[in-house]
């Protein structure tokens, strides 16, 4: 998707809105739904994934001419897993609250499609500086989407925002279901509908589960048949 002529600024900002990984490319949905019960968790997860994404993009881009094509996916996974392990130890040591909030989704950053997908579709083909910028942009786009979702769910579902009481809402009974599993799907669906509406105004296609961000696209051979079905 990245053409040669794209300026560094465009690469950097693409992930914010135009190619937002969660709302436009529809990748990384599992952590999006699971950890956004509170705004703080959304920010934490977003920043954790961003850190891994920047490091893995940089290293993969550096090594892109050395990694043999046939085994590039296992090599990418190993690189990403190494960074995730480092991150896990750092978070456990310095932000234990975040570690217990994210739980199993911290090690699962390894299989977050955003990271492997960006390695596959961007860092493996581009020089280091654009890859780092792409990592920062995509990571921040992920963080923004997670924060919005976490805020909506926390404000309506618990009457608080980043742990602070929201003045009027906290007097009512919070709608607990938004913090439970169904609320996650529901808020995500409505957010995506809004994103589609905005995209439509700008003359763009609505978001769909595509092969654009899927790391397995190349090996699965379904891309030309129009996706997983």
């Amino acid at each position, binding site marked *: 998707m990245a053409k040669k002529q794209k300026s560094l600024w465009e690469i950097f900002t693409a992930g914010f809105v135009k190619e937002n990984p969660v709302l436009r490319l*529809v*990748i990384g*949905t*599992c*952590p999006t*739904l*699971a950890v956004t019960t509170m705004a703080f968790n959304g920010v934490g997860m977003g920043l954790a994934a961003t850190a891994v994404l920047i490091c893995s993009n940089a290293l993969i881009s550096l090594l892109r001419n050395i990694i043999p094509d046939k085994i590039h*996916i*296992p090599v990418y*996974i*190993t690189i990403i*897993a*190494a960074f*995730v*392990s480092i991150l*896990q*130890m750092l978070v456990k040591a310095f932000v234990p609250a975040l570690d217990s909030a994210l739980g*199993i989704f911290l*090690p*699962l950053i*390894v*299989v*977050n*499609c955003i990271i*492997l997908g960006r390695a596959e579709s961007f860092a493996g083909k581009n020089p280091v500086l654009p890859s780092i910028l792409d990592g920062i942009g995509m990571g921040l786009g992920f963080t923004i989407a997670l924060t919005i979702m976490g805020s909506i769910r926390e404000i309506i579902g618990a009457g608080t925002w980043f742990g602070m009481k929201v003045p009027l809402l906290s007097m009512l009974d919070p709608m607990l*279901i938004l913090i*439970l*599993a*169904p*609320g*996650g*799907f*529901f808020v*995500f*669906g*409505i957010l*995506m*509908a809004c994103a*589609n*509406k905005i995209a439509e105004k700008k003359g763009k296609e*609505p*978001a*769909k*589960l595509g092969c654009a961000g*899927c*790391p*397995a696209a190349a*090996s*699965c*051979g*379904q891309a030309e048949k129009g*996706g*997983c*079905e």
Partner: protein
Amino acid sequence: MSVTGLVSIFLAAILTNNFVLSKFLGICPFLGVSKKLDTAVGMSVAVIFVMTLATLVTWPIQTFILDPNGLGYLQTIVFILIIAALVQFVEIFLKKYVPSLYSALGIYLPLITTNCAVLGVTVLNIDEGYNFVESIVNTVGAGFGFMLAMAIFAGVRGRMETSDVPKFLQGLPIVLVAASIVACSFLGFQGLVDGLFN
């Protein structure tokens, strides 16, 4: 370890802690491959197969190699490499010896390496402190829970094809809203396992 203990782990993994609908693991295939019942079931069978194999390998490695040597911090990297290698191995094996099964499951296998349900279940088994048998039971239960969610949702999506969806929600949004309602129905199982066995 009693039989009732195992049954309660199994039922909890399928119903109360359904992997897709309450733990949010494996959402990508849940949304991507659930349009038709046969592809949904095919994908689920492949997931159950790889999950069980992965648990059979990762549990002993964690317990007998990583833990005694103080290498617990290598868990993530070792587990994902084992899963990636297993998936490759299964793919090659099926291609050579069971071509009929390969043609049915083949296209789902590459997607499974990056399916968080597989890595998720192996890590959860360790985190929960399950022993070997409990781990296997939990894994198979999680796999069947995944299949149940996929099959139910394929039915829901089949009905949605013919219904008139508001323009605002057309496409993926209505799929997510429908998933939310299915997840709601699974909330009804909360407390079921505790009520049955304790």
